[in-house]
C-alpha cells in the first residue's frame, strides 16, 4: 500500500464514504459537513479523486438509481480504502499526540 500521506480531498472523500455509500453530490455535501464548511470540493476535483481511488481499488461503484430521469451512481469504500483511511488516521493521531505533549511542556 502507498505509505504517502493522503491529500486533504482524498482523505475527506474516503471519510465521507466510511459509513455508507453515497453519490457524487452526497459526497460533496458530506465533505462540507465533516470539515465544518472548510473544504468545498469542486465537482472536477471530486471525480479526479474518485477516478484515482477507483483505479487503486479503494473505492468501488455500489449501485445506480434513476432520479428525475437521470442516472445517479453511488460509491462505497472497499476494504483497501478503509485500511488506507485507518492508516492515515493513525498517522494524524500520532502527530497530534506528539505535538500535544510538546505543547504541554511550558517553557521555563
Amino acid at each position, binding site marked *: 500500500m502507498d505509505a504517502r500521506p493522503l491529500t486533504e480531498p482524498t482523505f475527506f472523500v474516503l471519510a465521507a464514504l466510511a459509513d455508507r455509500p453515497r453519490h457524487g453530490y452526497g459526497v460533496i455535501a458530506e465533505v462540507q459537513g465533516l470539515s465544518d464548511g472548510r473544504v468545498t470540493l469542486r465537482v472536477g476535483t471530486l471525480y479526479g479523486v474518485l477516478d484515482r481511488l477507483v483505479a487503486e481499488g479503494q473505492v468501488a461503484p455500489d449501485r445506480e438509481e434513476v432520479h428525475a430521469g*437521470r*442516472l445517479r451512481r453511488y460509491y462505497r469504500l472497499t476494504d483497501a480504502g478503509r485500511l488506507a483511511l485507518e492508516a492515515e488516521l493513525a498517522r494524524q493521531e500520532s502527530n497530534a499526540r506528539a505535538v500535544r505533549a510538546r505543547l504541554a511542556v511550558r517553557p521555563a
Partner: protein
Amino acid sequence: MSPLEQRYRRLLTWLPEPARSRWADDMTETYLQVETADDPEYAEFGSPSLTDRLDVARLALRLRLGAPGASVRAVATGRTVRLVAVAGTVALASLALLGLFSTAWLHGRLPFMDAPDLGDRLLWGPSYAVHTVVSALTVALAVCAVRGLAATRPLAVVVLIGQLVPAVVSVIRPLELLFQLTIAVPLVAAAFMPPGRPMHRPLWLIPVPLVASVSVAALRPGEPPEWTWGLFDPVVQWALLTVVAGAVLLLRRRRARGPAELAVAVLALVTVPALASRWPYDTPPGYATVVVLATLAAAATGVATGTVGLRAVRALPVVPADH
C-alpha cells in the same frame, strides 16, 4: 434535457476517453444537483461558471497526461512529457552548474583555484544575483524532476519566469528569443509533468552533464581551433546529443516504442529554431559549418524519431491503463 444540462454535457466533452464514458453522466448529474440545490429554476437559464470550466480543463489535462484511470495512450503521452522534462531540465541544470562554477571561480570562491585577475571587468549586480539564484533553482528542479516530486511543477514555473523575464526584458536582437524557446519547452513540460515514481536507474542521463562539461575546455588558456567553437555551444551540444540518442533508439530493437522516441523528437526539434537563429550572424566559417550540420541533423532526427514515436503511440488502445 434542460439548457443547463446540455451546457454541462458539452463542457464534459473536453474529457478524454475512456474517462468521458465512465464519468460524464454522473458528473452532469452532480453538477446539476450542486447548481440547482438552492434554485431549481437555474436549470433553465444557467451555464457552467468559469471555475467549473477551469476545473474540467484541469481534470482533462491530467487525464490526457496519464493520471490514474487514464487510457494506455494517455499514460504514454504522460511518459513522453516526463522524459522531455527530465532530460531537458538535466541539460539546463548541467549548464546552470557550469555557470555557478565559473561565477564562483571568477569571484575567488573556489578552494585550490586562484581567480583570474579581471580588475574592474568583474561585474556583479542585481541581474547577476537573480541569474545565480535561478541557476541554483534549475539544479534543484532537475533533482525534483528525476525524483518525480510534486515540487517539480511549481519550481518549473518559478524557473521559467526567472529565465524568460530577464531575457525578454534585456533582449537586443529578436532572434535571441528563439534560444529562450528552446529553454522554455522542457520547463513547460516540467510544469505539466505528472508526478510519479523516481526514475529507475537513470543511467541514460549521464552523457548529458558530461557533454555539457565539454564547455569547460573553452576556459583553458590558449585559443582552441576555430572548428571546435561550435562544439562549445550548448545548443549544438544539445542537438548532437539528441541525434545520438535518436540513432540509438532507432537502431536498437525494442518491443515498446513510443514515449522515448517522441521525447527525443521534441528535444531535437526545439533546438532547430535556436540553431537556425545563429545562421545570420557573422561567425567564423568552421563554427558556421558545425551549426548548419547540427541544425540539419537535429531536424532529421526530430522527423525520424517523431514519425516512429507518433505511430507507436497512436497504435496504443484507448482503454484504461489499469485494466
